[in-house]
């Protein structure tokens, strides 16, 4: 665990850079984290992030299949939004724990 300053705020993150407390999340933090990975967040990205945050709050196990069926974007679109990590990166930017699912 470490403290990291993101968007001018001191946030607690784990070894892999995931937020420890989902409640500390803000849009600014997401934008900053995405920038670090070379991704510019758009409204579409935020729709996915909100969906993930809500699902995570409800204790659901997240899969790309679920996001693909959310109506926000399909799986192909998800890969385009978050290249190289459709679920991993999106979860990171959404401030929720790293997904513990294999699909």
């Amino acid at each position, binding site marked *: 665990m470490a403290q990291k300053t993101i968007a001018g705020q001191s946030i607690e993150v784990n*070894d892999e850079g995931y937020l420890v407390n989902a409640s500390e999340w803000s849009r600014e933090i997401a934008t900053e984290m995405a920038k670090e990975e070379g991704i510019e967040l758009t409204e579409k990205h935020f729709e996915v992030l909100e969906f993930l945050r809500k699902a995570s709050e409800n204790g659901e196990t997240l899969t790309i299949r679920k996001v693909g069926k959310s109506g926000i974007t399909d*799986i*192909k679109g998800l890969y385009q939004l978050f290249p190289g990590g459709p679920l991993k990166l999106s979860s990171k930017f959404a401030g929720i724990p790293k997904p513990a699912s*294999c699909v």
Partner: protein
Amino acid sequence: MAAKEENPLKKVCIICAKGTIEDVYATLVMANGAVMEGIEAKVFFTFFGLDAITRKQMNRIKTATVGNPAMRAPGGLPFPTVLGLIPGVEAGVSAMMKSQMEKLDIPPVDEFLEMITAGGGEIYACKLAMDMFKLEKEDLWDEVKDVLTVGDFYAMCGGENTQIIFT
């Protein structure tokens, strides 16, 4: 928890030669898992594994109820092989496995393959096995990228940090 690997895997070439639920899904889960991690994936289906990419068969694959000592009835009760011989048992057991997987959000074969190709994974069929089973390209799932010889496939498996996996 995975620590940052200094020399990460870049590409996996997966070969699936068997057509049971467990063999095909092992292949699909590994291929999908790779593309989700940003790892390039190329999957080569051969012999009975071709069922997984043959339109007529892809959503009808089954698990063997005969000669499978690890298979037990729900609750861990023994499942004598002789029961597996009864007509309908294999279909019933396979349907049960599929419903358990669906609960974990593991999709049917065609949808799973779509998820892999959506992420840039590539699906190939083995020419020799196609000839053997008298299959034509039209019999295969639409998104099968090509029918290859083993030499063609190996030619794609070069490069640093590439692994060939035989499921």
